[in-house]
């Protein structure tokens, strides 16, 4: 099976990629503002800064492929095609949210898009992705599964179990480890004993590579290689994406563990949107004016999502009892 290269992406596809990354960024930037108003219940983990990973990975997938996400899942959901307005309503706890208000920020799912759910248990997802890949392999239709996880989840035994089982069963799972440098409030350099997630993954007996997670092209190309391998029966792979998050572990996290200027510095050097703009401009593949138009369009979509979410009705008490079982 051929590898789809980022260099081969045409203008309309590049515009789509930019729109997806921008949509995630503005979704999260707006949540950062709205959460501060106190109107959004619970707690929320923002994905801003990591957009090129979600989009670089999911642009190699179709609705027939599966992903499973993490507590920091909004970006993966948008990149896999979840409805942004339904997501916003869910985060506001509304009845017509994408999960009827019962899941919230950490459990957004859309099975029709192959999105098997954000998952609030760190390391909970990878075993489930292996199971989806068992189904893919049995069907023999070339579909694959992706397990997103962070440097934090990489230290969970469930991830070791899932990686080993994927290799043993030779199923088409791609483990995407987004190493954003922090497991909650603790540095990855402390918590990852070997300091090398790529080598650790490779030790399970599968190909693994490390990419710059702020570089859409690098993620897309690494994913292209992994997907081509998986679709043609070559088994699992790991991609470690070195990345940063622009906000705390959760909204309200004072981030005392980060140097004062760290985020400001990284917003300059590790902003995937700036990097993407510079790249497609240098290649003369997309005019800046078209990207500017997308910026405006995305802001309007987010405005509408927030307005609709704020106006949407809360669940009714009877909803408490529905959907525990199909039949009981």
């Amino acid at each position: 099976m051929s590898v789809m290269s980022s260099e081969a992406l045409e203008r309309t596809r590049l515009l789509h990629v930019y729109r997806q990354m921008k949509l995630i960024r503005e979704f999260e930037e707006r949540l950062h503002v709205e959460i501060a108003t106190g109107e959004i219940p619970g707690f929320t983990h923002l994905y801003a800064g990591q957009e090129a990973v979600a989009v670089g990975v999911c642009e190699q997938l179709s609705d027939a492929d599966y992903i499973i996400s993490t507590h920091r899942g909004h970006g993966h959901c948008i990149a896999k095609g979840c409805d942004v307005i339904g997501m916003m309503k869910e985060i506001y706890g509304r009845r017509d949210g994408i999960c009827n208000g019962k899941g919230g920020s950490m459990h957004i799912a859309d099975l029709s898009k192959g999105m098997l759910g954000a998952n609030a248990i760190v390391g909970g997802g990878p075993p489930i992705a292996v199971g989806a890949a068992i189904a893919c392999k049995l069907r023999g239709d070339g579909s694959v599964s992706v397990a997103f996880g962070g440097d934090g989840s990489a230290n969970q035994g469930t991830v070791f179990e899932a990686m080993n089982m994927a290799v043993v069963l030779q199923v088409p799972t791609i483990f995407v480890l987004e190493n954003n440098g922090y497991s909650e409030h603790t540095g990855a350099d402390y918590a990852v004993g070997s300091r090398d997630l790529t080598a650790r993954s490779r030790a399970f007996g599968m190909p693994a590579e490390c990419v710059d997670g702020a570089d859409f092209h690098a993620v897309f190309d690494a994913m292209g290689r992994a997907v081509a391998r998986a679709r043609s029966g070559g088994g699992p792979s790991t991609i470690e994406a070195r990345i940063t998050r622009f906000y705390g572990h959760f909204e309200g996290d004072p981030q005392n563990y980060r140097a004062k200027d760290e985020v400001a510095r990284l917003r300059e050097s590790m902003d995937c949107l700036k990097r993407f703009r510079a790249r497609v401009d240098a290649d003369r593949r997309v005019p800046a004016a078209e990207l500017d138009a997308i910026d405006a369009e995305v802001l309007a979509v987010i405005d509408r999502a927030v307005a609709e979410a704020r106006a949407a009705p809360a669940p009714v008490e009877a909803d408490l009892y529905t959907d525990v079982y199909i039949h009981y």
Partner: protein
Amino acid sequence: MPQLSMRDALNQALHQEMERDARVIVLGEDVSGGAGGSSGQREASGGIFGVTKGLLPRFGEGRVLDTPISESAIIGAAAGAALAGLRPVAEIMFADFVGVCMDQIYNQIAKFRYMFGGKSTCPVVIRMAMGAGMNMGPQHSQAIYSLLTAVPGLKIVIPSNAYDAKGLLIQAIRDDDPVVFFEHKALYPRKGEVPEHAYTVPFGEAALVREGEHVTVVAIARMVPFAERAVDALAKEGITCDLIDPRTTSPMDFDTIVESVEGTGRLVIVDESPPRCGIANDIAAFVADKAFRALKRPIIQVTAPHTPIPFAPALERAYVPGPPRIEAAIRQSLQDES
């Protein structure tokens, strides 16, 4: 009608359902066995208790998956395969090992449908061997069904005989909700009449194993044959009992129990698990709530003690409630208040 052991009845159910529905897969440790061994013999085990024997030769490695010893990955994989359209039957070799994969059972599988707003189905069956009586010690003998009965989103099945085992397992595989299926190790050889054809036993419908008028006895799993012995012995003295086997503890057929207690006024509950926060407490509390005025005597709970399960045969015998304790409890429930 053919006589089959509970083990063979379960095996037949798996064969018939895998034959009927190509989406049914089986996965777990040594469900076939032999992969990578020096003898080159596949199906070296067929499940440590033989329940999955014959499946690999018939259905192949794509549908009968020998896994590493990785309970979290086994149950997680079953969950993911179910979300992706299969109907997995996962095996946890010993129920005690649930501790290793509890997250996948009670945070993932049990909650998917609810937290995804009813937009997913997760038709997983998790089979596990449970129970004391074979000197397997504290980490291979527990009856932990109470623990999982407490989790909303799971259905809990605990057969006591071969007929029910087959019908309940087929129901479990066809059921669209996640099911945890407990098999008592000491009951695997227990024979009973089992029809050749595939049939289902519905969930939430207790079996009335014996009919009587003086005392209601509720028993689960291996406690059912033990209670049968106690009840049959007392019948010779003219003391007759309703003996009820709930068969599933979630959903639980409380109605049948309450109805019986309204007739007898006396209730003895027999449960192999420890006495605190267990299924016996659950049944006692429900009957006290719904049928307090019907009770002529206090409810008696015959359970294991609040201890781990010991290894030494003499100690394990003391741990497991047996027919003499059940008989004594029934007699006690008939004593007049003084």
